[in-house]
């Protein structure tokens, strides 16, 4: 990974900040790839194979298929270890199990998952420059969610014959728990599948709560009622109408919960079986939002997105234009292949590796839509915050249901990554509308970024001391990096005598606390300073610390890596900030209304200014004593944010 950075561009003539960015599209793997009767559940101190095996294979982004039938027992055992009284009987139904979870259980599951994800066994650190594994989406399947019992007093009605008892309320509760777990895990979206679109042919006498469903009526009425019911269920999952049983769930504002991505499932029996049905669901959803929560309707509107499954799109036969024309917003993308297509027949059987049946030419418009349109991030001075992340999660999930083959995962990953890279190199058709779209692809994350550079290493350690000096340098770098890993950081760039580490707030629990993150990173700084005991006095350490929204470029040249150009650039920029900050502060903060159009870097600085204040206070408090081994002598603690993008192609010269 190559990272380039720039800061407030007012100090660097010739660079213009972009008005929009394309967030880098990455590939994740849905954990439903492995499904087997293990006979015995894996122990709770290790992950189930569906998660463990991909992590071991170096796949760091997962879509967690939450509570599959083969892993339900594992989650139960996990909670039973901590809360033995709450989990006495083994679960039978995933929906009921997840609905029974309390806030403390969810928090424990999230912490435990993060801990296991970062364990040395699961995270073999195949390279120095790697991201920590993460869960980008939570996949669920609650088949009864489309038919809930609508409480009395709602401004709209659903015929009584469409209400089917308490089991549907359980499904809504389960979805709410899933949303909170996704929030705790830092997942960007929660996937659902619509329920049954047809009544049952016969009632099951063993399940009287389902009622003797013998619906006599028009099919369209049935669909309409169930879509309306599903819309009500989604609103209910975010803002419940009933009195909350525990208050912890409502400490988190619903606006912070991830959106729901509904997947269209080909099949006559499914409720969401076509794009018009999804549009109908959207209409019902907006109506319910305005009817029940008119104040929050705008926020709630962002919570329903489409989970675009490319293989299903081929089967259903809709095109990219249908999404564009109808204003359908995509929250997540699944990519696989089926040996079936609209007009070409075939069966909705197993998922295949992309490219097995449909060709790249058929995937191309979709990938172009995903890479060049869905990932587009607008930077606007009118918005607050100025950068509004897109609804799209930024990940294409590979769905290979129960294929149980690691080599198929690798095949799908390499195929899809190659295709995405191929599409990225293309110029989008809408280039004229977006003149700045050539600025490249980046991914945004919020957190602390730490630049460490061991100065004078080439001269002092290598030229003078030779092999011994190299060993010493390696020892010093290893010490510093071990500290970073221990504290939960990622090395996102490495240059032999320096690196850039990133501490994403989502990796810490609770993930929302800047203070806590700042404390941890400060501990890292202290630890580095304490462990800094080089044998050669000629070596000196330069460290820079920043907080804010950081943009990462997902691709870089090997040459940059070899020359550690980004690290050198970063450190030199830090040096420059120190000199230019005082003079330019008035110009960049705050931007005057009638001044020149503020640069986009400027808005970022403003966005992270509050964080800067806190961090500045901490750093000042800790490193102002004369006797402390503070090596922040370049004064990088005065910088405010790092804006990393590809546009800064020229390394600023050292004055």
């Amino acid at each position, binding site marked *: 990974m190559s990272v380039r950075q720039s800061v407030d561009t007012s100090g660097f003539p010739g660079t213009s900040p972009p008005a929009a960015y394309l967030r880098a599209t990455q590939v994740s793997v849905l954990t439903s790839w492995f499904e087997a009767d293990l006979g015995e559940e894996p*122990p709770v101190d*290790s992950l189930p194979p569906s998660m463990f095996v991909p992590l071991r294979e170096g796949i760091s982004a997962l879509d967690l298929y939450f509570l599959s039938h083969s892993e339900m027992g594992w989650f139960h055992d996990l909670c039973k270890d901590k809360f033995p009284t709450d989990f006495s009987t083994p679960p039978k139904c995933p929906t*009921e199990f997840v609905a029974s979870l309390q806030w403390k259980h969810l928090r424990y599951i999230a912490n435990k998952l993060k801990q296991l994800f970062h364990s040395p066994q699961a995270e073999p650190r195949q390279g120095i420059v790697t991201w920590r594994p993460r869960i980008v989406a939570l996949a669920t399947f609650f*088949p009864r969610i489309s038919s809930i019992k609508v409480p009395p007093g709602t401004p709209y009605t659903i015929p009584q014959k469409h209400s089917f008892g308490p089991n549907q309320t359980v499904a809504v509760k389960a979805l709410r728990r899933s949303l909170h777990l996704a929030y705790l895990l830092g997942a960007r979206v929660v996937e659902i599948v619509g329920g049954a679109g*047809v009544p049952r042919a016969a009632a099951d006498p063993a399940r009287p709560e389902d009622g003797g469903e013998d619906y006599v009526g028009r099919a369209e009425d049935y669909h309409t009622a169930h879509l309306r019911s599903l819309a009500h269920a989604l609103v209910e999952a975010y803002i419940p109408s009933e009195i909350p049983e525990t208050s912890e769930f409502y400490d988190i504002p619903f606006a912070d919960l991830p959106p729901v991505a509904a997947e269209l499932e080909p099949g006559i*029996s499914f409720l969401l079986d076509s794009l018009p049905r999804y549009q109908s669901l959207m209409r019902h959803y907006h109506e319910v939002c305005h009817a029940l929560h008119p104040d929050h309707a705008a926020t709630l509107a962002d919570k329903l997105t489409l989970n675009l499954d490319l293989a299903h799109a081929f089967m259903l036969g809709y095109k990219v234009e249908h999404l564009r024309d109808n204003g359908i917003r995509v929250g997540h993308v699944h990519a696989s292949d089926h040996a079936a297509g609209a007009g070409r027949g075939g*069966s909705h059987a197993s998922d295949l590796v992309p490219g097995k049946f449909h060709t790249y030419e058929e995937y191309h418009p979709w990938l172009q839509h995903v890479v060049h349109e869905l990932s587009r991030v607008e930077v606007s001075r009118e918005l607050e915050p100025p950068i509004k992340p897109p609804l799209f999660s930024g990940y294409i999930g590979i769905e290979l249901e*129960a294929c149980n083959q690691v080599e198929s995962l690798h095949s799908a990953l390499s195929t899809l990554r190659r295709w995405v890279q191929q599409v990225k190199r293309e110029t989008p058709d809408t280039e004229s509308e977006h003149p700045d779209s050539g600025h490249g692809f980046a991914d945004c994350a919020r957190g602390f970024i730490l630049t460490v550079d061991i100065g004078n290493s080439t001269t002092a350690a290598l030229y003078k001391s030779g092999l011994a000096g190299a060993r010493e340098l390696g020892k010093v770098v290893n010490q510093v990096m071990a500290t970073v890993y221990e504290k939960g950081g990622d090395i996102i760039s490495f240059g032999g005598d320096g690196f850039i580490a990133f501490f994403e707030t989502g990796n810490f629990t609770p993930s929302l606390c800047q203070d806590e993150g700042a404390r941890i990173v400060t501990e890292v700084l202290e630890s580095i300073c304490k462990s800094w005991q080089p044998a050669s006095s000629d070596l000196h350490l330069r460290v820079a610390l920043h907080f804010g929204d950081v943009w990462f470029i997902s691709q870089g040249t090997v040459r940059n890596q070899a020359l550690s150009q980004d690290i050198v650039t970063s450190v030199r920029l830090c040096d420059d900030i120190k000199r230019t900050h005082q003079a330019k502060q008035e110009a960049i903060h705050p931007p005057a209304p009638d001044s020149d159009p503020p640069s986009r870097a400027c808005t970022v600085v403003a966005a992270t200014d509050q964080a800067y204040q806190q961090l500045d206070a901490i750093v000042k408090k800790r490193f102002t004593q004369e006797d402390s081994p503070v090596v922040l002598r370049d004064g990088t603690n005065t910088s405010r944010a790092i804006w990393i993008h590809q546009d800064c192609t020229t390394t600023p010269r050292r004055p």
Partner: protein
Amino acid sequence: METYRRHKILPDPEIYVAEMRSGKAPAPKAAPAHQLSLPKKPPHPKGRLRMLDIVTDDGESKHDDLVREIDRLFRHYYTPVVFGARYRAPCPVWRSERIVLRKGELPRFATRVCIYQDHSIHPDGAGTTPEGRAPASHIDEIGGLLGFISLRPQDANASHQVAVAHLSCPSHMKRPRYHILSTALGPPDGVMTFRGTPYYQPWVSQDAAVRDRDAAPKDPNVPPNRAICLHASLYSALLLKSSTFHCSPISSHDLLARLWQEQNRHHGAISMKAIAVQGFNLEQCLDVLSSADANAGGCLETISTFEFFFEARDILEQRREMLRRAGPDGKEAPAEERLGLFRQEDSSAECARLLQDIGFQILKELGISPDSLQPTASDPAISPQERAAVLLQFCDVAEFTRLGANYDHVASELPGRPSSLELLKHVRNRRIRICRAYGRHPLFASLPDVQMLLAKREARLCMAEYLANGMPIIASISDRARDYTSQYSEGHSALIVGMHFQNPVPKPTPTPGYHAEEEWPYEKSDNFLPSSFILHDITQAPFWEVSAKNLLTASVYSKYEEDFQVLDGAFSYLAITPRGTRIGIRDVRRYADALRKIHLNPDNSGTFAEEYRKAFGLKETPSPATTCMRTRLMSTQDIIRWYIRPVTNQKEPGEEDLRLHTRGYAEACKLITSRPSAGSPPTATESPQTRWWCVECHSDAYRSSSFRDYATWMPPILVYCWPVDHDSSSALALPGSDPDRPGFTIRSTGRWECTIRRPNLPPVIFETRYVAPQDRASSSLPPS
């Protein structure tokens, strides 16, 4: 199977779990796939179901039903089976069933089990391979792959745990005399390809009695799905042709849902329960096939005995003439033949007299005194007809005695050593068959009998043509296929996926006796009729071989009298065809037959047939009576490639390009690829994917063995081609067009020359080098 390869190459993911538990990686398992997770167990007591513990984790007592079910699936394989890898896998059938059942507690995936032949168990004994040696390793015990099955979860409360079975056909059906439709299975399911035929068993609640009339439903509130056999046949057929015809399978639950939506749209509100109870017929089946959900097509054909009235009458007239004439030696025909004649003419007195003669003759042979048949005191007024009937019974007894003389053979044919009761039952059934055969013997045939025979022959021909073109057939049959003596006639359906050609049956001898009813009056075509069909029947098993006679007899829907006399009958079947098909083989054959009679009539086109005779050195001029017809489903490109095959010299590759300059080639291609509008020259162009029914008229010499070497290069005399979307109703609307007019006709006018004619267009003469498709692979250049 790819699963097998996977397990050999990569460690099983379960190893990771074990590794996590123990902290170190376990030793790789060297055992083959079928033993990965299970210890080896002694052979199953039943012999054919070894290692079933792979499927049944909790002991076998709970899974007797599953044992029986799998045993039934492989009933016609006559080989022991062994189970291979087992793993969870998606199953589209279970996917839709689960969502409709709303049973979220059931697993999302089905269990897939691979099944192989078991070579470790020999029929003679245990522990040896068929070659007689002991297996050297476990892998030697594994025979060929028989397929894989998808099992529903055990908690699904379904009477069938097997949802879909992807099976390769039994090994004895891989012989050339069998023709089994199969497809490439595996790629849609993510496993390695093998050829096989899918078999589907719909979800049926255990509480509902479906197709099992002996068992009453346990819960009257649970409606039975009355058309479940048709659902299964339709889904299996669509699965079979999904890759070739680009159609989408519709499972039973999806089918009910679609019917519910359609009924709602057209006939108002109706409940799903009512849909399930009211059933499903072939017309609805055709609608579903033609819909966008299935994306296929179908031909529903009904062959009625009424259509053969005139033909049957002509045959009987000829027969009468023959019987009335004295033989060349001056003697009259035998009494049996004359009996048949008189019976046709309804002259009872003559019949009675002849029957008496025959009876007395037989009694004399048997040494029985006729006096014992005199009227008794209790019934003095016995009429001549009744007396004849009694005698005829004796005739049957005599026949039975003649068969019974070979009693030892009968006993050896019976499986096992039958008890006397079984033997008596067997003999009784055989006697019943004999009696029936007398009732329909050609010699005793009446007009309806002959009509029925001709209708059956036509049905067999058409079904064989469909199967030969790779199109499965859903036959509407009754339960009488299973139980011949039953009069129970509830509708039933099964999928015909293959046929079996046996040796040509001998021509009927002039002596009276038992003969197959199909042997007369069409001896000529018997060699090309399948003797039996291969069925997928959910009440039986996959690959169930039924004789054509039994199947067609059971397929007749009609009214029967007490003495099994057919008043009127018809056969109905539905062939699964490509999308857009409007005309079927039955119609094009009928049209072509009528055209053939015109074109090959020596009075009309004597010169044309005569030219053909001279060109190919035939002994006699082809006529409608000496030609046979074959139907092929071909695309436009196929027609160009096969019939308008240009003359090339393949020995010199450089001349390959000259083929386009062959005389008439370009014009002929243009002629058939253009789409003429009503009465005007062609404007648009036909798609190359347009499919045609091509009816070829071959000379009988083509089939003659003495002409075999030469006839390989003999093109059909006439080829009539109809587009499959030919609509006779719309053709009627065109001015001056006939409903039976083909899209174009190819006439073979010379050795390497043909004429192609299309309505409203001038004919084109082109050179061709036709090679029969079945001979093309092995053929070289023809003799110049």
